[in-house]
């Protein structure tokens, strides 16, 4: 029944509004007429008294002076009287014939009376004018520009209960009728008077605003509707302390605007709270227990003999979202090239929550530990994800369904802004899982390259994922039982976007070309293969550090055969095999005359190695993660047999309850912060991403120039089989 009442109220209000509108239109119609009439009205007054105009003006002047000097409250109190007597006064003025007025002038006593009636007249005039000017302002409830306080206040009133508005409407109605009653006589035209009138108007305006406010407040406080509990003591200053009802609360809390606000502001707050450095710290008063305790827990590497601190791994953050990361595995990690504090992680599906989207992608911020900066979804498991190096807000990913998807951090939606079609074969895309995507090329000419496990390689335009720009099916050049190759990983040399290496399930690496060229067709190179791994290759990474010596032909692979191997890749497209055949690393398969190239060196581990990545700045540093759950950092310039640092991610809240079973500890991926190589992130089967800060001897800055040369020498020694 409450609702019924309210509906009726609203209907009534609408009717009122319509009335008001009509009235205003009518007024608009009549106004010009009035205006045209106006010149006639003063005619009678001014034309008949040209002789004594001066004296009359003087009289008016001091009359108005008195008016202005009068206290504001008083003049307001008078105004109703002015309204009522407006008609008589105007007729009275008509009766004031110029002659009689002039006569009375020297004699003081009656003059006061006369001016008084006149003062009333002026007042009505100004009053009437005020109302004529104001209504449009009042109906829209806009405050007058100069008053800051009022601005805050009346905006508040706007969102307030309808009771207040109601009051103002009826108020306006009154005014309208008063307007109709009040005569419009523009008798005065001199500038001074206008100024004074303006002054008066200003005063009146302020008063009326005051009154309006009070009206609204009282309307609110005795309001019939539910929650107008205005605490009058706090209403000044624009602060409206009122309790919201539960319904109102629900409406607010469910509004998109509010949720959006909560999302943004809570992020800011959490970043602020997560900030560890205290700007107010006073080092003079800090007690002794502020010691460096970093070295004890982590960095349990083998090479702890010298300069331990420079090679430490310090755990700085762990990212885990209870709602989303539960029972998912980290499938890829990538740092943003533009914002080194951001990293994107992709996850496989949570089999125990089939109603949740299978694919999950989260962007974490090193300064915001407790929640992801962004969360994205897809209908299929996301197997790999990468920030676009050419556009900071774009993230590309490869899915189990064979789709390539593109997310945009600017997008409101969690779904990809673009993705390739699911029906891969008919549209010329992938039909098998895509474990490897990359963006190759330059700022202005780049492609998304995706490779699926059935050997299909596609190049896509970032703007158009409906159809691949290139489609290439890799087939084994010298088929044995089958001509299929199943790439598990791929790598593009930093310098050449037309060639790439694929690592396959059977452990062989093949060089491939995107395009036909002289003597060879697009696809797997006929004459060359890199043989060494005896189990599927899990990762393949080109050396990308830029230094005085070019090391971009060094490739690092990790495999399920418990090794990490270092390769020196032959320049793509060169078929100069004769020169190389001297070394034991090169053998020629007699049946097929395919040249087999072996690795430079290998690093045997005690576990399957899932990932190995070069540091982005140091010539000899790389990191590996393995199935036992440890992350190791190597520096070939220090030691080629053992890692210089080793760490295991701490058990985290989310995973503490899980059994520390073998599988759950395993780490799948490692990523370096590409900008300065100071941070590293690892993640694995537990769904937790752990970020490390690496010691200064492993980080990007302070690389000595001779390091590059000595790395080159080291590679040379390896090449000659000296190691």
């Amino acid at each position, binding site marked *: 029944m409450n609702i019924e009442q309210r509906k009726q109220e609203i209907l009534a209000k609408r009717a009122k509004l319509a009335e008001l509108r009509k009235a205003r239109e009518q007024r608009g119609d009549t106004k010009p007429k009035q205006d045209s009439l106006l010149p006639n009205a003063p005619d009678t007054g001014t034309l008949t008294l040209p002789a004594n105009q001066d004296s009359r003006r003087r009289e008016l002047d001091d009359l108005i002076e008195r008016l202005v000097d009068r206290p504001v409250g008083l003049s307001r109190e008078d105004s109703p009287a002015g309204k009522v007597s407006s008609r008589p006064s105007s007729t009275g003025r008509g009766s004031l014939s110029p002659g009689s007025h002039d006569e009375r002038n020297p004699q003081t006593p009656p003059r006061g009376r006369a001016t008084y009636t006149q003062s009333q007249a002026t007042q009505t005039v100004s009053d009437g004018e005020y109302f004529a000017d104001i209504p449009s302002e009042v109906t829209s409830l806009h405050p007058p520009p100069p008053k800051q306080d009022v601005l805050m206040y009346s905006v508040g009133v706007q969102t307030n209960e309808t009771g207040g508005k109601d009051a103002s409407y009826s108020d306006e109605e009154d005014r309208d009728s008063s307007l109709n009653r009040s005569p419009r006589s523009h008798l005065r035209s001199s500038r001074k008077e206008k100024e004074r009138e303006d002054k008066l108007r200003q005063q009146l305006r302020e008063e009326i605003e005051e009154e309006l406010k009070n009206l609204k407040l009282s309307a609110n406080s005795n309001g019939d509707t539910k929650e107008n509990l205005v*605490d009058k003591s706090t209403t000044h200053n624009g602060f409206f*302390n009122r309790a919201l009802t539960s319904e109102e609360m629900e409406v*607010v*809390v469910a509004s998109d605007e509010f949720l959006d606000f909560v999302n943004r502001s809570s992020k800011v707050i959490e970043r602020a709270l997560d900030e560890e450095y205290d700007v107010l710290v006073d080092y003079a008063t800090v007690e002794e227990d502020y010691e460096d305790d970093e070295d004890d827990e982590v960095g349990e590497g083998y090479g702890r003999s010298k300069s331990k601190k420079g090679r430490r791994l310090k755990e700085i953050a762990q990212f885990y979202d209870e709602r989303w990361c539960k029972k998912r595995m980290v499938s890829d990690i990538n740092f943003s090239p533009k914002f080194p504090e951001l990293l994107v992680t992709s996850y496989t599906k949570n089999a125990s929550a089939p109603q949740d989207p299978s694919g999950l992608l989260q962007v974490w911020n090193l300064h915001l530990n407790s929640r992801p900066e962004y969360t994205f979804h897809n209908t299929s498991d996301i197997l790999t994800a990468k920030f676009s190096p050419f556009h900071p807000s774009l993230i590309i990913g490869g899915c189990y369904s064979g789709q390539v998807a593109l997310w945009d951090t600017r997008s409101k939606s969690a779904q990809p802004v673009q993705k390739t079609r699911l029906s891969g074969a008919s549209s010329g895309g992938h039909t098998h899982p895509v474990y490897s995507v990359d963006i190759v090329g330059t700022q202005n000419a780049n492609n998304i390259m995706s490779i699926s496990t059935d050997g299909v390689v596609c190049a896509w335009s970032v703007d158009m994922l409906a159809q691949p720009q290139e489609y290439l099916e890799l087939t084994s050049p010298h088929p044995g039982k089958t001509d299929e190759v199943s790439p598990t990983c791929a790598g593009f040399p930093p310098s050449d976007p037309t060639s790439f290496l694929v690592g396959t399930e059977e452990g062989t690496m093949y060089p491939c070309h995107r395009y036909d060229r002289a003597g060879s067709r697009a696809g797997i190179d006929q004459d060359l293969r890199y043989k060494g791994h005896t189990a599927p290759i899990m990762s393949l990474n080109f050396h990308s550090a830029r230094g005085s010596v070019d090391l971009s032909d060094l490739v690092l692979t990790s495999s399920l055969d418990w090794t990490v191997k270092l390769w020196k890749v032959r320049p793509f497209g060169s078929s100069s095999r004769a020169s190389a055949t001297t070394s034991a690393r090169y053998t020629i398969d007699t049946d097929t005359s395919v040249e087999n190239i072996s690795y430079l060196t290998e690093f045997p581990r005690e576990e399957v190695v899932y990932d190995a990545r070069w540091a982005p700045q140091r010539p000899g540093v790389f990191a590996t993660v393995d199935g036992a759950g440890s992350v190791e950092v190597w520096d070939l310039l220090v030691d080629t047999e053992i890692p210089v640092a080793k760490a295991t991610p701490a058990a985290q809240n989310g995973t503490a309850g899980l059994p520390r079973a073998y599988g759950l500890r395993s780490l799948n991926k490692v990523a370096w912060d590409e900008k300065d190589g100071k941070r590293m992130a690892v993640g694995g089967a537990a769904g937790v991403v752990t970020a490390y800060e690496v010691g200064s001897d492993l980080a990007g800055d302070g690389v000595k120039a001779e390091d590059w040369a000595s790395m080159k020498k080291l590679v040379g020694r390896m090449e000659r089989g000296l190691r």
Partner: protein
Amino acid sequence: MSQPTNATLEHLTRIATKPGVRSTLILSKTDGAIIQSTGLISASQKESSETGQEGYQNAENQKSAEEVAKMAYDFVRHASSFAIGMQDEDDVQLLRLRTRKNEIVIVPDAKYLLVVIHDAPKAG
């Protein structure tokens, strides 16, 4: 689907339960009405506790949610008039107020304010 709502509101609960966080408050910017608050007692509760049993001893020197809301609201208002006074078309984005005992972080927005009061970091 109330799911996104809940997920969003979880952010708030998580902030509220962070170590060191004493209270949180969401106000409407237009009139200062309290939309949500944690860690604060409302004025009505305070009254009843004052007249009631002694269990609420510390409630007396603790400000009620309404009082805090008013102070925060006024603070933001003055701060934004300061910001606008410095440069037109400017506005406050973040307020961090460090006191001896607390830090107050306020995020003002077009329609709402989020206020978080937490213990000041140790040193200082």
